[in-house]
């Protein structure tokens, strides 16, 4: 009797053991190494780093391994680790124009300075399952030479750093597009991870939120803007992926020094804007940025960013995709996953309270029905008497 809620402690310990076992799977197969995940599941790693908001390929790979490939769980693991890290300061803004580009495409111009560079993409694969990959890894030839080739290719790219001005900068020559220049006297952007989100939210805060936002959520919302749930006529002005240097000003030196390199994907969407009484018709921008190679995320983010600028541009607010509070409050998958799944926790106290209410209301209802049927007959008699 009364065992239903007892023994929680032992159950939890047993559950940990079972989890370890089920994560490992069939032990006749070799265990995945973190290095394998980092190198061979690089797109998963990119997503976990982006939404986990830590650029660390090894930790992201570890989180993916520990989460048995559940990326939202892996993102959560990385975020929980991130909380404990000390802050040394903020880096200089990244200059993506100096990116060592591995891929760069524009859908608005056939050719442009710096050229189009297709790079590694799934875009023009024909999505046929490649059964050769099912064969054992040894068949794929010597891994080390492959690795060397990739490195050489990368080195070659770095040797010929061709200037690649952004497409939006080129359009600016004619003044056709608004420019993203910091306003003089504009406050430093806030840090969403150190200050609570509040509304109205500045664009800097919005972009931070979207960068950490769930790819699936942004994809669906970005898609909705294309289907009429916002005023959006987007063109992919430019998508670029490659590595950029990260610089930080060190107090001891008094100048910015390079502290490393990171891979990023950047997307600038070009959208129509009808203009207003003060501003002539012009193109406007939506912006997306993600760690690693994350094109879908960066593009969806750019669509949503543009939709969220509706108020600032004086457009009619007609859709949830333009509602800043709605979008920013629901974009985070660590929050969303936690709250949806907290329904697994016991709620028997609240449910008991509801049970008591429903039983009482039903009893009252039954009593009322009985009452109303009696006066009715009384009424009939009165009528007959009259």
């Amino acid at each position: 009797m009364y065992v239903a809620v007892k023994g929680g402690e032992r159950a939890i310990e047993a559950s940990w053991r079972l989890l370890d076992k089920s994560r490992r799977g069939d032990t006749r197969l070799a265990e995945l190494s973190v290095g394998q995940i980092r190198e061979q599941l690089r797109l998963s790693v990119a997503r976990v780093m982006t939404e986990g908001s830590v650029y660390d390929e090894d930790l992201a790979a570890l989180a993916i391994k520990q989460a048995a490939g559940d990326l939202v769980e892996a993102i959560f693991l990385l975020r929980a680790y991130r909380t404990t890290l000390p802050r040394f300061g903020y880096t200089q803004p990244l200059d993506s124009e100096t990116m060592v580009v591995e891929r760069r495409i524009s859908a608005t111009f056939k050719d442009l300075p710096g050229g189009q560079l297709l790079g590694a993409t799934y875009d023009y694969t024909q999505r046929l399952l490649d059964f050769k990959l099912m064969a054992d890894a040894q068949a794929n030839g010597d891994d080390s030479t492959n690795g060397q080739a990739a490195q050489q290719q990368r080195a070659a790219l770095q040797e010929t750093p061709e200037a690649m001005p952004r497409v939006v900068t080129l359009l600016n020559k004619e003044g056709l597009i608004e420019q993203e220049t910091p306003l003089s006297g504009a406050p430093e952007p806030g840090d969403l991870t150190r200050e609570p989100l509040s509304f109205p939210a500045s664009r800097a805060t919005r972009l931070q939120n979207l960068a950490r936002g769930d790819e699936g959520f942004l994809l669906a919302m970005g898609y909705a803007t294309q289907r009429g749930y916002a005023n959006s006529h987007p063109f992919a002005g430019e998508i670029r992926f490659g590595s950029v240097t990260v610089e930080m000003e060190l107090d001891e030196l008094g100048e910015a020094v390079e502290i490393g390199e990171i891979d990023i994907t950047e997307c600038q969407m070009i959208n129509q804007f009808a203009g207003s009484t003060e501003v002539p018709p012009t193109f406007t921008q939506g912006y997306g940025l993600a760690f690693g190679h994350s094109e879908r995320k960066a593009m969806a983010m750019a669509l949503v960013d543009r939709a969220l600028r509706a108020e600032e541009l004086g457009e009619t607010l007609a859709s949830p995709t333009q509602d800043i509070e709605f979008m920013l409050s629901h974009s985070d998958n660590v929050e969303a996953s936690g709250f949806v799944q907290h329904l697994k926790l016991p709620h028997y106290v609240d449910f008991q309270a509801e049970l008591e209410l429903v039983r009482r209301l039903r009893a009252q209802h039954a009593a009322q029905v009985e009452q109303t049927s009696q006066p009715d007959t009384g009424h009939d008699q009165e009528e007959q008497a009259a």
Partner: protein
Amino acid sequence: MNAPETQLASAPYDSAAEGYNFAYLDEQTKRMIRRSLLKAVAVPGYQVPFASREMPLPFGWGTGGIQVTAAIIGRSDTLKVIDQGSDETTNAVNIRRFFARTTGVATTRRTSEATIVQTRHRIPETPLTDKQILVYQVPMPEPLFRLEPRVAECKKLHALADYGLISVKLYEDIVHHGSIATTYDYPVIVNERYLSSPSPIPKFDNPKMHMNPALQLFGAGRERRIHAIPPYTKVRSLDFDDHPFEIQRWEHACALCGSKESFLDEMIVDDAGKRMFVCSDSDYCHDRREQQADQTGAIAEGESA
């Protein structure tokens, strides 16, 4: 802080986890939370935004309460954690284990021994003292959210103390159902000013909040808000003159300890749907049964002598 000398459970856990700060959070974060707590205590019932952190437990599973506890706990504290009134539910066990690992403090199941009680969905039946702090886990700190989901709008309503919406909602309940159909998370006015959510405790527990000697702190991690009810503060559950606030009552007594005053959980004990009612507060129920055993023991001894 006011640790009693006897502790029921000497934690069978590892001492504080290596590589992490005491109570997991770094000191800067604790300071930030304490500042929000001070403001919350100074303005009873007002929701103070705070920079809630990602915790190693999921949002929605008590991260707000955990952060508040982590910010106030000291080495000499004794912690009790309950969920649905019980120390043994998996989430309560997990949170207690978290603090045992990250602080090494003593934990207890006895309400009277604890200096800090972290709770989800209940207030203990045993009255609290002015030496104790009750930390609530809060899913939605905004009492108006079902009526107005926009946080920015709700802030205005609170600033103007414009609580007409909720009165209309309660009035409509009465018109539809003959009584107020809110049974848990029943809205209260704290210190005659701010409309506040008591967290999803059953309304049965609401009267315990009024003039309680203990400090009551509410942490909502996902929604990034903290609010507080200082000791001996007026807390009024919303009602109307002709429809006064009422708490739940049961026709049954607890099947284990016979209490007629405590909040009862219902359990289905066989396929025919036979029901049994027992205290939701496991420590209270356990205590009463021990006392009863002592008494019968004493009587038996008396008889044999």
